[in-house]
């Protein structure tokens, strides 16, 4: 009985604690109704035109407009589905707060998808501008970072092809990078992570505007290299894939090679598995890159029958050469900018820490001096749905 009463008291006590904690932490005052929020889907970062400070551009979704166009039964005239807002401030945080001078609703950053950075900011150093997005609790770490030579506002305001919100279109563009493997998408978290590595240089995909049929459209156009947080140079599509081969991020895409007898052949990459080894020998950094690649023949522009074993051998050799070309091109650019975008230094950091400690101060020099050995094993495994090319004609005797 006494035990029962004690238990009862404990039960009541814990119940009281629970209720108390309920009241103390969290409550109505944290409530924000959906209709009082301005959902930001894209943001742009630039330096302010006057004074030193930042200009932040917001792309805010007009949900009702977005739905009404597709769902019919819409009203309210010709409003665009997005609302573009610009605000300035000495820091990014203050610029974001200053936006409340213009927005009747609270800006909600948790659904921000892309962060467009102007070249100027990239040249002046990116981290001071990105810092807010990591520190604040609302923005996600998984928003895409992109660099633009144009005004970020224009990107946010551009017509986005089939989509009605350009930020959402950019998300889809990023997601289908493996169809070509010629872009390297970068999350905010990726960028910060690379910055923590001491010797590795950052890359950012580039997006820009081009005009067609009187409309501004978006285009992904190569990769930017940022060394020590500052923009130093660019890679084109081919060089970008050279980088991705080494990083092991090639998930698909096509390679076209010139055939010796004239004409071209295009392969579709199935997968590629790289093995990178970095060593310090004889006063030089020695890099060994081995890549095992599998591909299928996707198109040919000759009448020759490429489906014989001997032809396969030749095709594989051609592919090997093409891949090596891409890697060499990327390597050359990286060396020219003295930027270790491949993370060779990081490899040493992880596998041979002592050596890395010796080399890190002069890593730039060692990187430029590095000897890179490339071994590629390309395989052609498929012909598609045909056993012989449609263009093939057996010669008459």
């Amino acid at each position: 009985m006494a035990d029962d009463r004690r238990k009862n008291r404990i039960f009541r006590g814990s119940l009281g604690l629970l209720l108390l904690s309920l009241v103390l932490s969290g409550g109505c005052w944290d409530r924000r109704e959906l209709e009082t929020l301005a959902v930001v889907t894209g943001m742009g970062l630039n330096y302010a035109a006057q004074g030193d400070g930042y200009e932040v551009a917001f792309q805010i979704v007009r949900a009702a407009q977005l739905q009404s166009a597709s769902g019919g039964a819409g009203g309210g005239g010709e409003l665009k589905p997005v609302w573009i807002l610009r605000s300035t401030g000495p820091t990014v945080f203050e610029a974001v707060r200053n936006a409340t001078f213009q927005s009747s609703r609270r800006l909600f950053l948790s659904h921000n998808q892309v962060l467009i950075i102007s070249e100027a900011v990239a040249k002046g150093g990116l981290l001071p501008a990105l810092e807010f997005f990591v520190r604040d609790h609302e923005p996600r770490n998984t928003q895409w970072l992109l660099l633009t030579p144009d005004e970020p506002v224009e990107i946010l305001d551009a017509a986005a092809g089939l989509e009605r919100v350009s930020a959402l279109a950019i998300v889809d563009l990023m997601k289908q990078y493996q169809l070509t493997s010629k872009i390297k998408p970068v999350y905010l978290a990726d960028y910060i992570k690379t910055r923590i590595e001491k010797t590795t240089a950052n890359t950012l995909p580039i997006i820009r505007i081009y005009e067609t049929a009187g409309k501004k459209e978006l285009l992904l156009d190569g990769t930017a290299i940022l060394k020590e947080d500052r923009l130093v140079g660019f890679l084109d599509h081919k060089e970008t894939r050279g980088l991705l081969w080494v990083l092991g991020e090639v998930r698909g895409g096509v390679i076209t090679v010139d055939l010796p007898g004239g004409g071209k052949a295009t392969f579709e990459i199935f997968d590629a598995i790289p093995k990178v080894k970095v060593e310090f020998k004889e006063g030089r950094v020695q890099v060994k890159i081995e890549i095992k690649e599998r591909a299928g023949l996707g198109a040919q522009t000759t009448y020759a029958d490429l489906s014989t074993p001997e032809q396969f051998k030749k095709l594989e050799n051609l592919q090997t050469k093409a891949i090596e070309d891409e890697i060499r091109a990327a390597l050359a650019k990286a060396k020219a900018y003295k930027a270790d975008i491949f993370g060779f230094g990081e490899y040493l950091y992880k596998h041979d820490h002592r050596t890395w400690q010796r080399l890190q101060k002069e890593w730039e020099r060692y990187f430029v001096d590095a000897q890179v050995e490339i071994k590629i094993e390309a395989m052609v495994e498929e012909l598609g749905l045909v056993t012989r090319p449609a263009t093939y004609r057996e010669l008459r005797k």
Partner: protein
Amino acid sequence: MFKFLWRKLRLAHLRKKNPLPRMYRELSPDLEVNLTAIRRELGASPDLIIRRITVGSAPATTGALLYIDGLIDQQIVHRDIISPLLNGEKGRKGQDSKGLLEYLVRQVLSVGAVKKEPKFEPVVQALLEGKTVLFLDGQAEALLLATEGWEKRAINEPDAERIILGPHEGFTENIRINTALLRRKITNPGLHFEEMKLGRRTRTTVAIAYLKGIVNEKLVAEVRSRLKRVNIDLVLDANYLNEFISDAPFSIFPTVGFTERPDVTAAKLLEGRVAIFVDGTPVVSTVPVLLVESFQSPDDYNFPYYYATFIRWFRYISFVLAVLAPALFVALGSYHQELIPTPLLITIKSATEGTPFPLVVEMVMMGAVFEIIREAGVRLARPVGQTISIVGALVVGEAAVTAGLVGAPTIIVIAITAIATFVVPDLLGPGIILRLFFTILAGVFGAYGILIGLLFILLHLTSLRSFGVPYLSPLVPLSPGDLKDVLIRAPIWAMRTRPRLIGWSQPERQPFGFGSSGTEEGEEGEAEDGG
């Protein structure tokens, strides 16, 4: 918290206790005195029939037959009582008045159950139960003749517990028919009934049913003692008693099970449970009851095990949905918008744009409207039901959204929830209460509030017991062997044992496997226990 209230109520009750005057008077040998007493007791009710007769010729004895019109079977009274008394009586010779009653019972009256009664009170009671009473002048005893017969409802399928396959009969309002229905399911001498009268004024027949040899005798004793302690004016339905004998009278969860199906009752008895029949209602209570029982349907055992398992999981999911869906929607929509995928957020936002109320108000409001429609639909005459559904669908579904009063997603959530609630009919009441509770919690505290609420409910559920059996068993405390009928519905041949905490006095149902049903073992055991 509740216990305090309980004690208060009991005290108040004790103070007012005043026992009814009991009148176990003896009958008088004088016929007229007896008849007057009866008339005074019953008043001038026109349905009390007093048929005066004269029995025999030498010497003739005057007497009277009494019965309540409508409660007796006219045919029995005419053919088997009046007619033999008047005609078959001619041949009697020199019968002394002492042996007259005995003689009538043995040689004249062709009625089944006959009882001699010297006391006044039982005679009145018997009269009210549909028996015919025979008074004879000079006899201080009355004959009670079983002539009950009144209009009964036919055996129908219970509306509240419909099934697709399996037996379609349900209990009726007549306790005798009900016990017979159960006997038809369990042809076993171990099936025992214990009858008692409950309700000080209604004197309703209540029967406890159990299977001797399988049931735990202590459980029967406990049920008996709890029922004995019930001191109530009237008993019209099983629930009148359930609220008295329930372990947790203030809990929203039912700690006494109920069913209208003989097959369900039979299955429960065979698991070692006790059933309580109440005359005048088709609802039979079963104890002890577990939470998981609410999720079991008779159809589970009439369909193949894989399908039954699949459907049972849908029942679990439906209940969770019915309780939590509006709360989660409110929490996500008002507090944790970052948890909604962007495209979905935009869709929801576009639908709620311009609605004047906070989500939680919308949700509670529409929930209330739905409950109103449901209640009206249940109460209204059937032809009007259609009107309700049209008005409900049009006004609530269409107009509210078109007018911009509530968002379409709210309606969708309410609709799904409403349907999901009916998947588990046993927990309809708790489901609705919990839903409101969680929705308000979510509206005030967000997902955090839902979590605290769930903890609270879990705490409460673990503290519940039904006739000594933990309400959450076999989950808490865990009896792995019993999960065969909880997480899955195992094939019948694999359900070898009865629930551990209920049927432990005779745990084995059958030997394991598909093999020939060698039940010798089981029968031996039963015989031992029964003897």
